[in-house]
């Protein structure tokens, strides 16, 4: 059996480069070789470093020390340490580009480590598509500060005023004579900067240096190949799931067979004869088996006899009755409606009123690799190997859950399957930590497919009631949006009292989280507007597979589907082309924060131009002969400061109900693009993930349990669903592109909206699909309902 500890090459390599005998922690705690007069602040130099040495094994790193972020090595390479994670959108490459540019060092001379809690500053991990928009800024500023310090040191060595030197390719050189130069390594290689930074929080971290103006950026804006792709393609990457430790055990969970059941008894003898059996672990309704080998644990989990008492009350309605339940039940809470103008008066005066109900079911993460974690309790510490996107809160939450000092817990971040929000990677991390802590041996926990698909966190189901008022000229005068979301007890990230194991053990907060019913971001100039939302609950609140948490672009696909779908209905009712209808609404917007109005018009125009054959129409295309109908539709949306327009072309087979989105066109403006190809691919895959949710994804359940548990019962998009053409235009159309502070806004979740393909289906068929996903039986039923 292989017993060696395997870490990612980059991690091993970086640790070795620092010093073969010293860990990064020891490096940071060691006395600085430099005594600088150029420190950026009056904070005591080395304050946290001394603290780090005293406090224990895994103290928090001090983000106010430059050495926490950047190390220059004796071979004139640099390692960057950042508190983010990369789910495969290429942020690790983008961050390197940002820091290389500010530091003036060649991209190839750098590496970047992220996410491991004991070697990187806590930037919270990933979430909210804020990596480039928010977390990139402190990285740029600390790299700029390192450059400033190196310029001062270099100028002194070259016996020149600082104003007479510059930096390039990891060297400080005389402006007047570039042959006079000194490398960064000669200045600080293998030693600490010992420079303090300032900032009230990690996002505000800064030195004295300013970042470069956009005109001077050289590495940012280049489509450099992603650094994580070659090892993912040649098989050399060590993933979190690949780590093997001496004495490691394998565990599998056994979930309540019916939601809300109580564990009455467990017959350990039913599995005691399995070779390699170690133990059954039970606390409350949490149940797991632990064995020496993986296949033994799988067998034991299948074979273990346990008696469960079903709940007295059905935990939830069946999924086919979900929307009746959602519309008929009393809300747990209702937000104060956001009202502008006089919607009631406008509806009373309307020439025409439209009403429509939209519905989106629960949808899951259903990661391609079910949730995984490995925990090692060796040396009286607890190390968790995980791909969780928020490793820092995983560490803190586990320490709280097990009542351990934070300093004794660390999370080693490694690559893993998709992490688009609050995934079961949180839950399994706590389970591995609990089992390792209980057994005193390393324990690897791997969720099975049925567990991942049934029990991972879900994006909330929504029912919408939309109403719109048109005047006699077909002008939209009022819009009323009312959302009902099944989002009560929404679980947060790595909360020690809401992770699944805590729920099953009966450790819960006094009050469930209120949850939320999202409102659309409305830039349209609509005079009379009312936006309202209600949160509802299912009967079973805890220990339920229908627990909600953030799923990629939380609420965005649902809200955009209803809102933009209804805007399309209004355009059709007013006899206007849907592009022109939206253009007029945007142009009527009173608001132009961050030039959003101008940029929105630009992306709409860019999408139409890229599409190349938008035929202006005021009504659906006349039905063609033959079984296959085609149509096109557009949606516009924005998320924070990123604006997006998507055009879908669809084919609908009216005999089978099969929908194929043949082409997608996206115009996307997120400001300064750090890596255009990486951005483009992220937008593409985000759109297609949204398309999978539009066409296929739906959590199904009866009144006892989730019944969609694998790829047969819970289908996902496949190769054959892929569009034959995808055109993405990066508009990045700041009206003033030379503006020095041209910002970089977020991407990743912005383009996740293709449920709006429904408007193209309308164009093809004349039938509105107001219930997602658009599986063929549902499409066929909608077509037949109109024909009959």
């Amino acid at each position, binding site marked *: *059996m292989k017993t060696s500890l395997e870490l990612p090459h980059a991690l091993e390599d970086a640790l070795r480069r620092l010093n073969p005998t010293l860990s990064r922690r020891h490096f940071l705690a060691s006395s600085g070789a430099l005594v600088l007069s150029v420190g950026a602040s009056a904070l005591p130099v080395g304050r946290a470093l001394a603290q780090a040495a005293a406090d224990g094994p895994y103290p928090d790193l001090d983000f106010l020390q430059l050495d926490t972020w950047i190390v220059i090595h004796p071979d004139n390479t640099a390692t960057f340490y950042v508190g983010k994670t990369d789910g495969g959108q290429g942020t690790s490459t983008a961050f390197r580009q940002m820091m290389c540019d500010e530091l003036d060092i060649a991209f190839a001379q750098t590496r970047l480590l992220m996410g491991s809690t004991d070697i990187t500053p806590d930037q919270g991990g990933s979430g909210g598509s804020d990596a480039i928009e928010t977390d990139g800024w402190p990285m740029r500023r600390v790299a700029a500060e390192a450059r400033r310090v190196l310029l001062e040191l270099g100028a002194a060595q070259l016996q020149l005023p600082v104003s007479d030197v510059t930096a390039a390719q990891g060297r400080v050189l005389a402006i007047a004579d570039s042959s006079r130069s000194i490398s960064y390594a000669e200045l600080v290689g293998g030693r600490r900067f010992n420079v303090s930074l300032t900032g009230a929080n990690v996002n505000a971290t800064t030195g004295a240096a300013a970042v470069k103006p956009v005109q001077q950026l050289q590495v940012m804006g280049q489509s450099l190949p992603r650094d994580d792709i070659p090892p993912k393609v040649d098989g050399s990457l060590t993933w979190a799931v690949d780590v093997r430790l001496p004495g490691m055990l394998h565990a599998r969970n056994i979930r309540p067979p019916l939601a809300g059941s109580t564990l009455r008894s467990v017959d350990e003898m039913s599995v005691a004869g399995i070779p390699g059996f170690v133990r059954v672990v039970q606390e409350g309704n949490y149940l797991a088996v632990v064995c020496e080998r993986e296949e033994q644990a799988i067998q034991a989990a299948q074979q273990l006899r346990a008696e469960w008492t079903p709940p007295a009350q059905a935990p939830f309605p069946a999924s086919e009755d979900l929307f009746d339940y959602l519309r008929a039940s009393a809300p747990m809470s209702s937000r104060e409606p956001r009202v502008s103008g006089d919607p009631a008066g406008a509806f009373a005066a309307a020439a025409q009123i439209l009403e429509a109900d939209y519905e989106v079911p629960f949808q899951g993460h259903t990661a*391609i690799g079910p949730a995984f974690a490995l925990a090692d309790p060796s040396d009286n510490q607890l190390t968790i190997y995980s791909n969780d996107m928020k490793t820092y809160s995983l560490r803190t939450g586990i320490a709280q859950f097990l009542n351990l000092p934070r300093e004794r817990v660390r999370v080693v971040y490694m690559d893993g399957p998709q992490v688009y929000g609050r995934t079961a990677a949180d839950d399994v991390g706590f389970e591995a930590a609990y089992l390792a802590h209980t057994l005193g041996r390393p324990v690897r926990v791997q969720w099975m497919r049925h567990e991942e698909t049934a029990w991972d966190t879900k994006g909330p189901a929504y029912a919408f009631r939309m109403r719109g008022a048109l005047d006699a000229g077909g002008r939209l005068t009022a819009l009323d949006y009312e959302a009902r979301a099944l989002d009560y007890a929404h679980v947060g990230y790595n909360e020690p009292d809401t992770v699944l194991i805590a729920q099953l053990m009966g450790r819960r907060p006094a009050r469930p989280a209120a949850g939320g019913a999202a409102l659309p971001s409305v830039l349209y100039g609509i005079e009379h507007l009312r936006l309202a939302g209600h949160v509802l609950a299912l009967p079973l609140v805890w220990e339920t597979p229908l627990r909600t948490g953030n799923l990629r672009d939380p609420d965005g696909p649902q809200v955009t589907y209803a809102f933009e779908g209804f805007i399309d209905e209004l355009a059709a009712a007013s006899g206007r082309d849907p592009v022109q209808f939206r253009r007029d609404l945007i142009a009527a917007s009173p608001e132009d924060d961050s030039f959003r109005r101008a940029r929105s018009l630009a992306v709409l125009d860019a999408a139409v131009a890229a599409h190349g054959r938008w035929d202006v129409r005021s009504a659906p295309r006349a039905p063609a002969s033959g079984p296959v109908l085609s149509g096109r539709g557009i949606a516009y949306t924005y998320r924070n400061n990123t604006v997006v327009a998507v055009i879908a072309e669809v084919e609908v087979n009216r005999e089978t109900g099969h929908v194929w989105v043949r082409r997608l066109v996206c115009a996307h403006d997120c400001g300064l693009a750090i890596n255009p190809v990486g951005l483009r691919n992220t937008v593409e895959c985000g759109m297609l993930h949204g398309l999978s949710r539009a066409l296929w994804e739906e959590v199904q359940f009866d009144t006892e349990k989730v019944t969609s548990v694998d790829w047969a019962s819970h289908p996902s998009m496949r190769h054959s669903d892929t569009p034959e053409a995808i055109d993405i235009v990066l508009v990045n159309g700041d009206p003033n592109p030379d503006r020095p502070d041209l910002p970089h806004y977020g991407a990743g979740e912005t383009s996740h909206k293709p449920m709006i393909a429904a408007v193209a289906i309308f164009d093809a068929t004349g039938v509105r699909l107001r219930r997602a996903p658009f599986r063929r039986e549902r499409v066929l039923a909608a077509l037949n309902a109109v024909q009959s």
Partner: protein
Amino acid sequence: MSILALNVNGAVREVDVEPSTPLLYVLRNDLALRGPRFGCGLGQCGACTVLIDGAAVRSCVLPVSAVSGAITTLEGLAQNGALHPLQQAWIDEQVPQCGYCQNGQLLTAKALLDNNPRPTDAEIRAGMEGVLCRCMTYYRIQAAIKRVVGATDPEAAA
């Protein structure tokens, strides 16, 4: 437990396991290979794919005792230090997002092209249909396969 001999990536390896153990766990846990990965354990998703005598096989549902042919995993795709053209195309097209499924995508594409060096778009879609990607890199995968097909197409090269 039984001692079994497996031919993996050109070398004969002996393992001492229960004969009913799925090949996936033997490759990962006994032979420390990283290419084949657990995705469903049901033969539905393709993340565990290996090549056996050139055919793409789901190792998560194949008992190790049923294996008689030569096994190639993702680690064995490169030859003499040179990436397989599909691997290079995957880099050129910047295919992966998270990358977890790409083992199955690459090996299935390899088996597809070995059988049919010049597949049509429809044949690519059909041949790859059983391999799932939840980051939705399908369009990039198809582009990468077409890139290899184009490079070996004498008409395209002319």
